[in-house]
């Protein structure tokens, strides 16, 4: 199963912090998954926004990559603590 994590303002937008799902039919890579999630949760392109970073298995990913269906995928809006 894919483990999808939504952080910060994205968790409000998606109305969830996390979800588990099987790789949807016809989805084989990260960009297709983002589009699928966008439609499924009516995100209005939020995942495609340039400010959003994507982590696959806790590593930053800057390019489109193929998915196996068992990855942890995190969507990260701009960070900052302190």
């Amino acid at each position, binding site marked *: 199963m894919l483990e999808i*994590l939504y*952080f*910060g*303002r994205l968790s*409000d937008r998606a109305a969830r912090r996390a979800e588990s799902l099987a790789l949807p039919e016809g989805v084989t890579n990260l960009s297709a998954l983002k589009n699928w999630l966008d439609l499924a949760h009516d995100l209005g392109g939020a995942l495609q926004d340039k400010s959003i970073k994507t*982590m696959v298995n*806790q590593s930053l990913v800057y390019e489109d990559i193929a998915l196996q269906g068992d990855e942890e995928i*995190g969507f*990260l*809006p*701009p*960070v*900052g*603590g*302190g």
Partner: protein
Amino acid sequence: MIEVTDIAFNPGERLNGFSKDCEDAGAIASFIGLVRSQKGSVDKLRLESYPGVTEQGIEQAVAQAKNRWPLTAVLVIHRIGTMGVGEPIVLVATASKHRRSAFQSCDFLMDYLKTDAVFWKHQSGPDGDMGGGEWIEPRAQDYADKNRWSDP
């Protein structure tokens, strides 16, 4: 030592403990960040982390600080969860033989924590955060502060 915790901590006690373990240092610099009341409009601050990723990022920043300055010890405690006005969010303490390294590395680590550490901050007013409040992202000044440490 790095600690990301959802439990309130007492900065004074933690700093005392840290200084007892730093007998070889001649100087300790520390910074405590508190939840600020913004003219009464902020009642609660909620911080979220990405467990594992957040700690790893802070460890890398501490390693960079140790590379850059001759530090004998570093302490970073960072809260997650919900905090009220006046509550400590963060404690950074750096120990070195001399004061300049301690001051500078503490400042460096705080700039990292403000702009690059993997946290998300949500503030809300007296009505709570039921559908209200806002997510806070770093200001331009925070990024400018961090860029002071870039190599020319």
